C-alpha cells in the first residue's frame, strides 16, 4: 500500500487532480451548510456581476438566483450521477466481459455482438432517447449513462480475462477441481482490478460530461440544480452576463480534468512497469 501511494505521488499531475477533487467533494458536502436554502430560490436582483455585491461572489443569473449556490449544489448532483452511473455500468460490463472472455466460443460471439450493437449506436443520441422515454429524473439519467457506457468495460474485461484464463494459476485451479464460478471470482477477476479502476476514474469524468450535456438540452432532473442546466439557461445571455455560464463551465472543466489526472496517476501506480521512465 505504501509503495502504491509513493508511485501515485510521483505523478505530480495526479496529486493536483486529487487535491482539486477533494475541494469539489468538500464543496458538494458543504453546500447545504453555506447555502441552506434551495439554489432555485431568487435571492436578489438579476444579472448581478461577480463581486458586485457582498455575499454573491459569483453573481446572479437572469432570475436573481445565486450562481455560487448553484455551482456548489450542482457539484453534488454531478458527483452522485458520475459515481452511481459508473458503478451501474461496471455492474453490467464486468459480468458480460468476464463470461465472454472466460467461456469463449459461441457465448463470446453472442455477447460481443450484443455489445457491438450498443457500440454502433451514437452514445449521446441513445442517451437522449432513453431519458426522453423514461422522463427526465435522476434515475433515468443514471440508467441512460450506464447503458451507453458499459460496452467499453465489457471489452476491456473480456480482453483481460482472455489473457488471464490461459495463465497457469487458472489451469491449476481447474486441476484441483475448483468450480468455474469460483475460478472466475477468485482467480481471474481480482487480477483485472487495476485496469478497471483506471477505466472507472475516466468513466466518472465522461459520465459527468454526459449528464451536463443532457441537462444543457433541458433533459436534466427538473428538481435538481446542475452545472449543465446552468450553462444551458445562461447561454442566451452569454455576451452581457458571461458569468452565468462561465462558472459552472469551469466547474465541469476542473472536475473532468481532475478525474483524468487521477486516472493517469492510478495507471502509473497500478502498472509500475508501464509507467513512463523516471516520471
Amino acid at each position, binding site marked *: 500500500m505504501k509503495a502504491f501511494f509513493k508511485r501515485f505521488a510521483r505523478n505530480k499531475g495526479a496529486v493536483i487532480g486529487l487535491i482539486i477533487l477533494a475541494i469539489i467533494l468538500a464543496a458538494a458536502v458543504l453546500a447545504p451548510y453555506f447555502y441552506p436554502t434551495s439554489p432555485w430560490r431568487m435571492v436578489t436582483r438579476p444579472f448581478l456581476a461577480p463581486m458586485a455585491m457582498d455575499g454573491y461572489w459569483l453573481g446572479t443569473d437572469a432570475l436573481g438566483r445565486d450562481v455560487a449556490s448553484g455551482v456548489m449544489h450542482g457539484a453534488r448532483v454531478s458527483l452522485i450521477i458520475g459515481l452511481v452511473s459508473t458503478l451501474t455500468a461496471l455492474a453490467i460490463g464486468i459480468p458480460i466481459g468476464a463470461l465472454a472472455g472466460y467461456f469463449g466460443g459461441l457465448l463470446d460471439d453472442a455477447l460481443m455482438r450484443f455489445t457491438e450493437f450498443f457500440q454502433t449506436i451514437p452514445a449521446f443520441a441513445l442517451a437522449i432517447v432513453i431519458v426522453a422515454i423514461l422522463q427526465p429524473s435522476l434515475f433515468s439519467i443514471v440508467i441512460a449513462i450506464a447503458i451507453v457506457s458499459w460496452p467499453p468495460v465489457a471489452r476491456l474485461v473480456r480482453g483481460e480475462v482472455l489473457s488471464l484464463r490461459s*495463465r*497457469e*494459476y487458472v*489451469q*491449476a*485451479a*481447474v*486441476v*484441483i*477441481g*475448483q*468450480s468455474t464460478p*469460483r475460478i472466475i471470482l*477468485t*482467480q481471474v477477476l*481480482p*487480477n483485472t482490478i487495476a485496469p478497471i479502476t483506471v477505466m472507472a476514474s475516466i468513466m466518472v469524468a465522461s459520465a459527468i460530461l454526459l449528464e451536463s450535456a443532457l441537462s444543457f438540452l433541458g433533459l436534466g432532473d427538473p428538481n435538481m440544480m446542475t452545472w449543465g442546466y446552468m450553462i444551458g439557461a445562461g447561454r442566451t445571455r452569454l455576451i452581457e452576463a458571461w458569468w452565468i455560464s462561465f462558472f459552472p463551465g469551469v466547474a465541469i472543466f476542473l472536475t473532468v480534468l481532475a478525474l483524468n489526472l487521477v486516472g493517469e496517476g492510478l495507471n502509473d501506480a497500478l502498472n509500475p512497469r508501464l509507467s513512463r*521512465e*523516471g516520471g
Partner: protein
Amino acid sequence: MTVLAIDNLSLALPKLADRTYAVEGLSLDIDAGETLCVVGESGSGKSMTAHAVIGLLPSAVKPAGGSIKLAGRELIGLSDGEMRKLRGRDVGMIFQEPMTSLNPVMRISDQILETFESHRMFNAQQRMRRTFELLEEVGLPDPKYIARAFPHELSGGQRQRVMIAVALALEPKLLIADEPTTALDVTTQAQILKLIDELRRKHGTAVLFITHDFGVVAEIADDVAVLQNGLCVESGRAEEVLQKPTHDYTKRLLAAVPSLTPPPPKDLSGEPDALIVRNLHKTYGGRGFFGGGSRKVVAAKDVAFTIKRGETLGLVGESGSGKSTVGRCILRLIEPDDGFIKVGDTEFHGVPVRQLRPLRKRIQMVFQDPYASLNPRRTVGRIIAEGPEAQDVPRADAEKRARELLDLVGLGASSAHRYPHEFSGGQRQRIGIARALALDPDVLVADEPVSALDVSVQAQILDLIQDLQKRLGLAILFVTHDLRVAAQVCDRIAVMQRGEIVELEPTAQLFANPKHPYTRSLLAAVPGAHVKVAAA
C-alpha cells in the same frame, strides 16, 4: 590481438536494489577469433556486462568505475551518437529471444539492409548482393525466398540465423551473444552453436558469449569467466576451469549440472499400475471459420504408456512434439479427441466435466513457470488450501494441511501468510509442488518443472520431487526437453516426435543403445555431451 579489454569495471545499481553493484571489479580480455563465455546464474550480472559493452544499460544502472576498451578505444563516456556509430559496425549483438528480436512487419531483407543504410555503406546494389551473401553464409536455404519472407514465416532456428546475419553484416570486431540458444530446441541449438563457432574462426571475430549452461560452455568456449552476484569468482582457459575448478562456487555449479549417466534403476516389480493411457489422440485446428483451409497439427497420435506406483516416466521431445499436450490431455485440461485414460482403478476419459471435479484429486500437476503458476493476489497458504477446500475439506483442516505441506517442501509453516512475489523462483516451484500434493494425488504430471530455474536450484527441486516420490509412492509423468534432467529422474523415457512416441525404453537402455534415428539425433545434440566435466 586483444579486441575487448574490460578492466576493473563496476556498474552501480539504483539505491533500493538488493546490492550496490550489478558488476564489481570485473576484468576480462578477448582476443580476435576467440570465444569468452561469461557464465552465471540469473542475477549474477552477466547480461549487464554485455549491455555495458554495447551501451544499452537500463537508465537506472550507471558505470561507476573501470574501463571498457574496444580495440584500444575507451567506450565508457562515449556520447550516444558515437556509440550508435559503433553498434553494428564494431560490435554486433544477438539476443536471446528470436521470436521478438526481429520486427514482425518487415521483410527479412529489409532488416538486414537497414544495417547498411544506418551506417551509410555501399550503394543499393551492393547492399542487396551483400544481403544475399550473408543469408547464404549463415546457412539459410534458398536466400532469395528467405529475403522476401516475414519473420513469422521462419522457424525459431532460422530467425536466430537471420539475427546472426544482421549482427555480422558489417563484419564487427566483436560479437556479443546473450543466451542466443536458450529459447531453441537442442538440435537447433547444436546447429546455431556450430554456426557461431565457424563464423568467428572464418572472420576472426571475438565472441562474448553469455550463458547459464555449462554444456554450452564446454562446447564452444576458449576462455570462461564465472560470475556470482556481480563478482568474477573464477576465470581462465575453458578446459582448466571445467576440469580443475578451484573456486567453490564453480565446483558447486558444475556438480549441479545433471550427468547424462542415469543412476541405477529402482526395483518396481510388484507395484500396481497407477496410470494407464491407451490410444490417445489429439489434433489441433482443421476447423477454420470458412470451413477447411486451416492447418491441422497432430499433437498426439495413438499415444500409449503405463506408469507404475513410484515410477517416473519421462516424456521428452522438442517444442511442438506434443509432449505438453499429452500431459494436459491426461489431466483433461485439454479435451482429447479420443483415448483411454485410467488413474488407479478409475476411468478418467469420457467422464462429464461436472462429475470430473471430485475425481481430479487423483491426478495433479506441477507447472513450468513458477512466476505464472501462482495467483499473485492470494497468500501462499490460501493457494495451497484451495485444493482441499474445492474437494469439500473444511477450511480450518485445509489450512492446517497447507502449513504441514509447506514444512514438507522445506519452506516452513510460517510462510503461509506471505504472497508469492516474496519468494524466489525455486521457492515458488516448491509452493507449486505443495499445492499439487495437497490433494494426496496418486499421479503427478510435471510439465517442465525445472526448465525455468537456475542449475543449482534445479538440482534441489529435482531432489525434492524424488524424495517426495519415495515417501508418497507417487507415479510421475515428467515432461521435459532436457535429456540431462530426464537421465537423472526418469525410470523410463518416452521420446516424442510430431505427436507420436517413437521410442519408449528404460533410461539406461535408451542412453546406451538408442534405436530410433530421432532419439540418436537428440542425444547427439546435447551440448557438452562428449566433453568431460569435473565431478565434485
